[in-house]
């Protein structure tokens, strides 16, 4: 059958896209609206069904809105439900018509049947029309107090819906506090679970503007709340259990006894058939034991079996999600899984996304005792009908060879691949042999003998060709016909499409020339002239460069192009350890499946339950320039945060002139210099002028009167802390002290540029790790270290420039010295803006 083309399709009668059908429906509905004939509900049902089926396939049936509402006056619950569904779908685009429904929905909210009350309330809250919110508050308020748990359950989610339509209406009605009460007292666990969901969302987004919400958000992970949930966990549905476990992850027990209590309590959750529950439990176990190396390792041992069982039960999709997490753990601690390698063997009928993960796991767990068997297995896959997997398998063998010491057997296997005479196998194997030679030059003899037999005509893939050419150049002394093979390749220069190959060809022929000049001279000349005429800029430039080098001095050219090489000991890892740690912190989320931290694939408001890392992720790094284009800001900041440690070190060093401070002296001269260098617009003179304009009487405040006497605590002026450690510490340490104080007017004015404060604090040996926010609300994260020991202070500093207030939260490794540090911090801050 020929599929109908688009033009034929739209007028076809079976595709009810025409207005005619909808028009028919409209008139039929109108006829039924007033009818009280017996069996009218059945005819209504049929019509409603039709409307909804149109809606499902994307036909706009909003024009029957009025008729649908007229027909909704019925006691038939099936009809009601269909009508609610319809109204929920179209109310947003028809706000005026939506008003029509308010009446009957409000009436239904007072129905005798709790089922109807709940349904009506749910639909009422799903209208998503901003100017109707006034009608929601009343029914929601009574819904939350309803005697029936179904209605309460619906009402709690209703509050959240209201919050998304109009946050202020929701907060003004004090609904969050009602939810909190329900969360802690309701007898129905689903009401409790829904309250928790709603409060997490509401307080999570309110926390940015309201101190109270921020405190409430913190209170969710306080000990009493956490214990309340933990003790009831088995009463919750499996889905709500996941929610509770996600909350528990954020809690930091005070000591190891508490940790063990929680783990013992949750132990049997690992035997749950629902993978989501098991993974959420595993996350709790892993996070709780981060600082207890032995126990952490035991956790790995304990979770192995449940994870493997989940991988092999359930649908392929479910096992993929679990396998991704197992993959992460295997990559983190391969030695723990090295005896389980057989579980990572591929099955022939598995989808390739599963096979790829397994191949990586096999590569990671290979060690002295199992390499032989793993490589044997991988070699079987190299003959696989699935070419992509065959390639991956060969690469895996290569990777194992590169990470092992005893590679004899593996080299033999790789060389056997070269003899298999399958073009893709040869291609992959060539690339590997090249990498192997870079690490183990001692194998050159054996490899060259085999590589020499490969006809370059059989190698077509650019990467493989480039590898072959590299070997020809590098080992031209041992390969008798290297110059001639290169020569024939150069003859076909114009047919070679890959610039990479041509670049390699230039370099190889140079190397060959230095080793065997008479035989290569002609080829070199041909290559250089072809290169100079090449349309590709890089190829052209390289040819010209070589040409000039040779003209200048052949010996120097050899030193440049063919210097003696050191064997590569470790090949660069593709992912930095910070990124890996961050993914691990986001265990049981999409980050694990994508193998990327959340900031790389999700915008900030959707990062899920990782609020703290969100905050850090959204804040900009201290050293960042203020001129960044806003659109690129988030991403650039995130990168800075992860990669900027070394840069920051430099900038710290630069501003401190190399001499370590022993006391927090206020070297105002150096401060103003750095400020004026970096921020010409904010030089002391300029700000003076502004201050004068504002009439703040800058000079009136004598410095000595404001500055408290410098405390005795000495800070390390070159303290270094990477963001990941900061995050981890911030979550683990308890809050030592919270203070709030006023800023000097000068300080407030100087804060128009956050950088100024960052530099100022840096000069006091208090380093900024991240900053952000929009005026008037600014937020900074600082850290400091003691001069003589590795004891760190972490500071969260929230400044509101309009009220000139600063709120300081301090966490410290060494609690005893918090007072001193906080005094020091205060004095440093109070000094800000005073030249």
């Amino acid at each position, binding site marked *: 059958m020929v599929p109908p083309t688009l033009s034929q399709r739209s007028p076809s009668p079976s595709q009810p896209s025409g207005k005619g059908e909808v028009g028919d429906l409209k008139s039929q509905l109108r006829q039924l609206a007033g009818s009280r004939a017996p069996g009218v509900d059945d005819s209504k049902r049929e019509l409603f*069904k039709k409307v*909804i089926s149109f809606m*499902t*396939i994307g036909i706009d049936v909003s024009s029957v809105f009025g008729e649908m509402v007229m027909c909704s006056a019925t006691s038939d*619950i099936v009809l009601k439900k269909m009508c609610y569904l319809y109204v929920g*779908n179209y109310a947003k685009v028809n706000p005026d018509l939506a008003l029509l429904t308010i009446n009957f929905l409000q009436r239904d909210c007072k129905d005798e049947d709790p*089922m109807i009350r709940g349904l009506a309330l749910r639909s009422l809250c799903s209208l998503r029309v901003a100017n109707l919110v006034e009608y929601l508050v009343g029914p929601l308020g009574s819904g939350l107090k309803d005697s029936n748990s179904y209605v309460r*359950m619906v009402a709690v*989610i209703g509050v959240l819906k209201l919050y998304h339509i109009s946050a202020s209406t929701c907060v003004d009605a004090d609904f969050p506090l009602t939810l909190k009460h329900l969360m802690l007292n309701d007898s129905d666990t*689903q009401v409790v679970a*829904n309250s928790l*969901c709603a409060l997490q969302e509401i307080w999570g987004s309110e926390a940015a503007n309201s101190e109270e919400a921020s405190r409430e958000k913190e209170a969710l992970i306080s000990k009493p709340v956490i214990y309340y949930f933990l003790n009831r966990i088995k009463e919750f*549905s499996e889905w*709500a259990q*996941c929610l509770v476990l*996600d909350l528990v992850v954020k809690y930091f027990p005070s000591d190891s006894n508490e940790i063990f209590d929680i783990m013992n309590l949750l132990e049997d959750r690992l035997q*749950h*058939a*629902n*993978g*989501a529950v098991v*993974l*959420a439990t595993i996350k709790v176990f892993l996070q709780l034991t981060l600082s207890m190396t032995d126990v952490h390792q035991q956790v790995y041992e304990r979770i192995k*079996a*449940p994870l*493997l*069982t989940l991988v*092999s039960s*359930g*649908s*392929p*999709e*479910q096992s*993929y*999600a*679990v396998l991704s997490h197992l993959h992460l753990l295997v990559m983190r601690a391969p030695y723990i899984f090295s005896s389980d390698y*057989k579980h990572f*063997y591929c*099955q*022939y*009928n598995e989808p*390739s*996304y599963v096979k790829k993960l397994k191949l990586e796991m096999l590569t990671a767990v290979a060690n002295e005792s199992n390499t032989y068997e793993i490589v044997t*297995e991988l070699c*079987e896959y190299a003959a696989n009908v*699935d070419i*992509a997997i065959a390639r991956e398998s060969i690469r895996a063998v290569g990777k194992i060879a590169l990470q092992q010491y005893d590679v004899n057997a593996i080299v033999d296997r790789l060389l056997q691949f070269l003899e*298999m*005479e399958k073009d893709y196998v040869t291609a992959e194997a060539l690339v590997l042999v090249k990498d192997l030679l870079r690490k183990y030059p001692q194998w050159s003899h054996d490899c060259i003998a085999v590589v020499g037999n490969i006809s370059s005509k059989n190698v077509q893939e650019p990467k493989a060709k480039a590898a072959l050419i590299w070997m020809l150049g590098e080992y031209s002394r041992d390969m008798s016909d290297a110059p001639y093979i290169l020569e024939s390749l150069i003859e076909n220069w114009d047919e070679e499409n890959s610039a990479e190959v041509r670049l390699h060809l230039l370099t190889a022929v140079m190397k060959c020339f230095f080793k065997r000049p008479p035989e290569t001279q002609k080829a070199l000349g041909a290559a250089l002239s072809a290169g100079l005429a090449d349309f590709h800029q890089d190829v052209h430039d390289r040819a010209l460069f070589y040409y000039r080098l040779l003209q200048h001095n052949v010996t120097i050219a050899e030193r440049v192009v063919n210097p003696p090489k050191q064997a590569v000991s470790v090949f660069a890892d593709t992912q930095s350890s910070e990124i890996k740690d961050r993914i691990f912190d*986001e265990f*049981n*989320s*999409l980050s*694990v*499946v*994508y193998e990327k931290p959340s900031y790389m*694939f999700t*915008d900030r408001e*959707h*990062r899920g339950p990782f609020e703290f890392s969100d905050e850090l992720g959204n804040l900009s790094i201290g050293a960042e320039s203020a001129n960044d284009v806003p659109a690129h800001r988030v991403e650039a900041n995130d990168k800075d945060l992860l990669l900027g440690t070394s840069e920051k070190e430099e900038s710290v060093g630069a501003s401190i002139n190399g001499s370590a401070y022993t006391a927090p002296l206020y070297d105002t001269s150096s401060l103003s210099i750095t400020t004026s260098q970096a921020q010409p617009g904010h030089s002391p003179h300029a700000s003076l002028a502004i201050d004068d304009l504002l009439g703040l009487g800058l000079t009136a405040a004598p410095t000595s009167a404001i500055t408290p006497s410098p405390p005795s605590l000495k800070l390390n002026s070159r303290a270094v802390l990477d963001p990941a450690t900061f995050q981890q510490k911030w979550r683990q340490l308890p809050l030592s002290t919270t203070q709030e104080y006023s800023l000097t007017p000068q300080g407030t004015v100087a804060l128009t540029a956050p950088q100024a404060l960052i530099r100022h604090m840096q000069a006091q040996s208090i380093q900024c790790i991240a900053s952000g926010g929009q005026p008037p609300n600014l937020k900074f994260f600082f850290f400091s270290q003691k001069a003589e020991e590795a004891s760190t202070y972490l500071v969260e500093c929230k400044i509101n420039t309009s009220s000139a207030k600063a709120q300081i939260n301090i966490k410290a490794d060494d609690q005893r010295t918090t007072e001193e540090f906080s005094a020091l911090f205060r004095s440093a801050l109070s000094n800000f803006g005073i030249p």
Partner: protein
Amino acid sequence: MISQFFVLSQRGDNIVFRDYRGEVQKGTAEIFFRKVKFWKEDGHEEAPPVFNLDGVNYFHVKVAGLLFVATTRVNVSPSLVLELLQRIARVIKDYLGILNEESLRKNFVLVYELLDEVIDFGYVQTTSTEVLKSYVFNEPIVVDAARLQPLNPAAIFMQGSKRMPGTAVTKSVVATEPGGRSREEIFVDIIEKISVTFSSSGYILTSEIDGTIQMKSYLSGNPEIRLALNEDLNIGRSGGRSLYDYRSSTGSGAVILDDCNFHESVRLDNFEVDRTLNLVPPDGEFPVMNYRMTQEFKPPFRINTLIEEAGTLKAEVILKISAEFPSSITANTILVQMPLPKYTTRATFELESGVIGQTADFKEVNKRLEWGIKKIVGGSELTLRAKLTFSQESHGNITKESGPVSMTFTIPMYNVSRLQVKYLQIAKKFSAYNPYRWVRYVTQANSYVARI
């Protein structure tokens, strides 16, 4: 938390579509389907169950030829969403009896009803078929079970005279029998999927059993159930020992599971003592217990492959399958597949005479030999001879260029692990109460491969 849920047919039509939070644009179903269909240009690679496209995360599971999809912008737990999708499919199946495109299309209003109660504003409310009963008012429109393809889930239990009441497992939990009252019965299925890899010399390289005790209850009034397993059942392996050194225990001795997990409703109070599980089965289908076993077992089939070159452009392949299980047992729907060298142009087959229901075919497109057998009785042996013609010389590489041989099959009333349900006790409501109890075993091949 999810934003949208929808079900697509194989052709990409929307069967149901529910937007819970309005955070993701409308055209996602189309975007999703195009992406899945053309994941890789060559069409060989399947789209992974989770992917991100322009900030939207798409999750999908395939059930009964349908795509169950969820979208969200939030960095959620992938396990949770995939588990949820699978569960939604199961709940729908519980209600409709049969889950396929036709039944879904006929009952889409009922499905919307379910979806409204299962998820509210993206948060899961309940996935319990039992709880949902009180919120759902549409009656399912039953699809004719007889018109199903022969390989429906119920068909695996049909075997000669021991035919199971095939309609029972495709019965809706809310449907009533013609007589008005529903029949009191309970099904317990022990389903084992086995994976075996034989080396080219016939030695077992790896073997694993992934088992499930599946229950489907149509009992009224939620009586408590006691399920007793083998008393010599052991769970967990003592540390230190390698996973595959249990050869000595073959044939007798304890059944040793590597690990297992249980459904929420299962209470394990007596499990340590007498290996009994207590539960009050909720309505609908659910796995009571999943287990995994690497203890060595006797593989039901042996596969022998012989390749002989016959001149430069010809070769002969001889495949022999031996059924190594009791003659009282019959395996069905057997399919043997073997990739042949790429330069194979033709294959002619010689089937053993006297065996009915055999087919042999050479799939030109992917150069694959396919041998289908309807039934094999335990203890018997079957041979296939195939004469191959090549378009180029094989250089003695035929073995390297072909294989491995893989096999799929179903063996009803047989389980390799020897795990057993010793008895199934139902708490009596009254003395005459004696519901039907069906305990059924089945072994299926998951990955059954012989290298050559």
